[in-house]
């Protein structure tokens, strides 16, 4: 079971709204490499693991991913509060807003809702751990978009 601790793992307090950035950041919640998928991946894979070390770490990092998800959702929420009609239309947030208003919905940046196919749970320790390694490697791919680098990203 779980108990809720009424805090974020790292505090989020965003002063300026940005529905444009929110539409990109939301991928880290419900996108193919997002925190929701990460939490589901580890918390489902743990049942078929034969070793206590693996059961333990999948439980603990699966739990931590839920805390990450909460921070990303907090960012999306704070970036999209008190929007005017002009801000919604000019930022391109209108395509999200028409379905969800400023509700936080698990989807990728391009609008694809979160899909269970993003994760694997094969009942095989090697298959599952290899998938975890691949998933972990994707986390470095999201960062360059927000760096100040002027060179081509790819």
């Amino acid at each position, binding site marked *: 079971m779980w108990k809720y601790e009424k805090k974020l793992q790292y505090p*989020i*307090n*965003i002063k300026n709204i940005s529905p444009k950035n929110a539409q990109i950041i939301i991928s880290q919640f419900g996108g193919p490499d997002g925190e929701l998928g990460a939490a589901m991946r580890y918390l489902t894979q743990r049942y078929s693991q034969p070793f206590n070390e693996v059961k333990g770490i999948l439980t603990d*990092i699966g739990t*931590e991913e839920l805390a990450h998800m*909460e921070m990303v959702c907090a960012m999306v929420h704070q970036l999209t*509060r008190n929007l005017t009609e002009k801000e919604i239309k000019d930022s391109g947030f209108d395509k999200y807003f028409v379905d969800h208003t400023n509700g936080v919905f698990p989807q990728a940046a391009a609008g694809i809702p979160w899909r269970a196919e993003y994760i694997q749970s094969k009942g095989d320790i090697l298959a599952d751990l290899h998938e975890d390694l691949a998933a972990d490697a994707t986390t470095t791919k999201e960062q360059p978009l927000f760096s100040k680098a002027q060179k081509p990203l790819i």
Partner: protein
Amino acid sequence: MSRKEQLTKIIYELDFALHELNLYLDTHPTSLKAMELLKEYRNKRQAAVALYEERFGKYISTIDEVPAGSCWKWLKGPWPWENNFMEEN
């Protein structure tokens, strides 16, 4: 930085370290050094929370909280995902 912010920052930092040690011990369960560090940081956290509560009241509202006064404090905002959570808690 106010005294309250200072103590909160220290508690967050210790929570981070404690969590990392927890993960390390999951895959290195016989590391005596990690277990010692875990104990050390846990004591430090306890001391920091005690200092905080001495001056500023209950550190974090949890569902285990003992009801006191005339209102169920668990509901008091702002909630963690809202702006100014740190300032007003």
